[in-house]
């Protein structure tokens, strides 16, 4: 089963992620313009982009545990997933700025005054250095520092999950499940992940 999935994953080129992820906001835009997003298309677009971005962040965090715990190797997709997550967060932010809030002075007021927006914004800002250094040259150039720098994804994912929980009205399971997944995936790392090979040797 895992072997079959690994074989399959080897055949899928990485550019597929960039293609689908790159087209996604434009697909939503088209849906929004043609009535496919319901009667409040700006909000629907904003939510869809934010939720997809969070799903990709969680998927990115799951790649190492998946490899070590069940032997599923998706590591070649990780950069694509991370960069696409950044691109969707950027689109989410633009939809919020241009289609939702619209007024520049209110945007600044919101960022400073509203904690869930402050948290979301901080998450976005922390993603910028990660997106900039997501290329082979930076990986070589930064060496060990690159690995340290990219641990920022942990913080970014927590902020993303928290942002979702904080904007919910009433007690809602969905955002809590997202935040819970992030916390779980980070706790697995904290405990240290025994790899499949070490376990089979033992």
């Amino acid at each position, binding site marked *: 089963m895992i072997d079959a999935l690994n074989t399959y994953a080897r055949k899928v080129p990485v550019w597929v992620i960039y293609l689908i992820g790159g087209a996604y906001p434009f697909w939503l835009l088209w849906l929004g313009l043609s009535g496919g*997003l319901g009667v409040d298309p700006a909000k629907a677009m904003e939510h869809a982009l934010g939720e997809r971005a969070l799903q990709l962040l969680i998927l990115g965090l799951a790649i190492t545990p998946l490899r070590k715990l069940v032997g599923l190797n998706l590591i070649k997709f990780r950069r694509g997933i991370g960069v696409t997550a950044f691109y969707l967060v950027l689109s989410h932010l633009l939809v919020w700025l241009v289609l939702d809030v619209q007024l520049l002075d209110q945007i600044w007021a919101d960022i400073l005054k509203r904690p869930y927006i402050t948290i979301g914004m901080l998450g976005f800002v922390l993603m910028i250095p990660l997106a900039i250094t997501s290329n082979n040259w930076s990986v070589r150039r930064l060496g060990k520092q690159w690995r340290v720098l990219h641990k920022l994804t942990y913080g970014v994912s927590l902020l993303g999950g928290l942002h979702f929980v904080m904007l919910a009205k009433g007690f809602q399971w969905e955002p809590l499940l997202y935040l819970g997944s992030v916390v779980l995936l980070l706790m697995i790392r904290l405990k240290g992940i025994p790899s499949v090979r070490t376990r089979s040797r033992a």
Partner: protein
Amino acid sequence: MAHRWKNNLTRSDVTPHDIYLNRRQLLGGAAGLGLATLAGGKAQASELEPNSWEEIISYNNFYEFGTGKGDPAQHAHRLTTSPWTVTIDGMVDRPGDYKFDEIMAAMTIEERIYRFRCVEAWSMVIPWNGFELKDLLDLAGVQESAKYVAFETLYRPEEMVGQRFGTLDWPYVEGLRLDEAMHPLTLMATGIYGKTIPNQNGAPLRLVVPWKYGFKSIKSIVKITLTDKQPPTSWNKALGREYGFYSNVNPEVDHPRWSQATERRIGGGLFAKRIPTLMFNGYEKEVASLYEGMDLRRFY
């Protein structure tokens, strides 16, 4: 007694469904009680074009059927609305179980086109059919000692799937001060666009208080209690810092998590411009006197 408050648009003008969709309406939301002025009407004309039937019935907050805007439209068909009984008790002369059909037989249904402003900063214009709450309260005979009215929504988790989750402390409860409840703008809606109100909009009867945020307009009411104490309200119990008892629409008092200065009118499409939110949702002339001398920041 019906027709205490008048739109400057006659009922015969607005009943056919397609007319709503095609014609700009002249409705004096800011006009006085029964003193609708043409000037006020014209200034508001383009803004008070009612939303389409489709918009009104597909985009709802009714957490008893789920927290998504489309959930009520998807799940509310499971709700049985007939037979329906409203218990009216507390400080009334004639407490008891009032059958919905009996209430309808005693009431005069009229048309009210109101702005509807959600606390989440979106809004619609909705052509309700219903009767004034005052007429129903008069039917039961409000006693002098009563100062508040408490309302309760049906609790039936086998039909209201959202009640299986603890999103709020069910059943949903709301309340009004007696003078707010007796105000001629305060409506019990039983229809939209001349049709029976759909389940997702609060069938068979719901409150509509157009100068307050939408969550005050409690749906699918089964109980009305007259009392002398301010009754608890669901959102206030869940998050008291964000949702007060009064919850009057007020562009100057922000929700802690977002601004209330502007709103998105549903139906404008992807690039719709935000519009300014009006004090008391445009009904300032009619209701501001109810709150004279009150600090509206404190009593949010």
